């Protein structure tokens, strides 16, 4: 192939890739977490349906609303009367090694990895508004 032909091909592929992006983009109304506890969230709140997750957890709130004491998970105790940010401060602190952002990421993503389903990549939860 001649250089000029290769160049045209290169531009064409680039063009198609970018344009497909524009056409496929469509805003949707999605149920999201409210990132109110973050001072200035970089990303929109994660797409999340609480009802679906209650169903997936077989009504066991403590799967997500866990309780830790001295770094140990206390089984069968639920913290569903608290906000996540009540324990997980924004920055790591002596009584909380797990900052809020990491708490969310680890809790959601690790579970999705373990179960082999559910979103795991950044933009799959933080869908653009």
């Amino acid at each position: 192939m001649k250089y000029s032909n290769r160049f045209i091909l290169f531009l064409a592929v680039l063009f198609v890739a970018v344009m497909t992006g524009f056409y496929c983009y469509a805003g949707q109304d999605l149920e999201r977490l409210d990132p109110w506890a973050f001072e200035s969230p970089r990303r929109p709140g994660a797409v999340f349906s609480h009802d679906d997750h209650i169903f997936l957890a077989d009504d066991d709130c403590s799967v997500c609303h866990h309780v830790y004491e001295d770094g140990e998970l206390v089984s069968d105790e639920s913290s569903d009367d608290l906000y996540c940010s009540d324990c997980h401060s924004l920055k790591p602190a002596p009584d909380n090694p797990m900052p809020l952002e990491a708490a969310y990421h680890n809790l959601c993503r690790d579970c999705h990895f373990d179960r082999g389903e559910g979103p795991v990549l950044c933009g799959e939860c933080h869908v653009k508004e």
Partner: protein
Amino acid sequence: MNSFIAFIMGPMVWISVIIFLGGLTFKLVGILGAVRQKEPYIYSYMTLKHSLRSIGAWMIPFFPRSARMSPIYYGISYLFHILLFLVPLFLASHIVLINEAFQISWPALNDSVADGLTAGVIAALIFFVVRRFRVPEVNYLTSAMDYILILVVLLPFLTGFLAYHQWVAYQWITVIHILSGELMLIIIPFSRFSHMLNAPLTRAYMGSEFGQVRQAKDW
């Protein structure tokens, strides 16, 4: 799919970083050993002072006459190399992942700034492609491998850019982003990307010959 993503976000990152760093280290040790064995005279002429003098002179923007003769290419190339490291290393999304894995963190670029800089990298790469077509002396030297190397750098930046904007097939784009980033790391020691190791060495040697023996400037 999740287990595949888990693999490319976990073990595969380790594999590629180990190949990248290990490959370069292996290469460096190999070069130093081969010099000792086959061309020990090189060590006789290398001096730290003149090596650093030469590398330093070539790091100052537009200081070498060569750079001033081709200011556009040199300027773009200079910024490109800075961004090549700056953008991935200071990207918020990358820092979040590193923070969660190692509990270390550093300040991140503002997302829209990073987005613009990524576009800058892509634009620089497109400029390199155009230059390879348009400038006769560069075209004369160009082989298919030169385009492949540009493509290897373009892929992670382009897919990163698209992934950030979530315009299309987000999951696939991100998977390609991760894979192409790893590919780039892996092939660095085995391709002419190894100039990140070789270039300081060849510059240092030339700088030493010029500084020590020739007592002249090499910029």
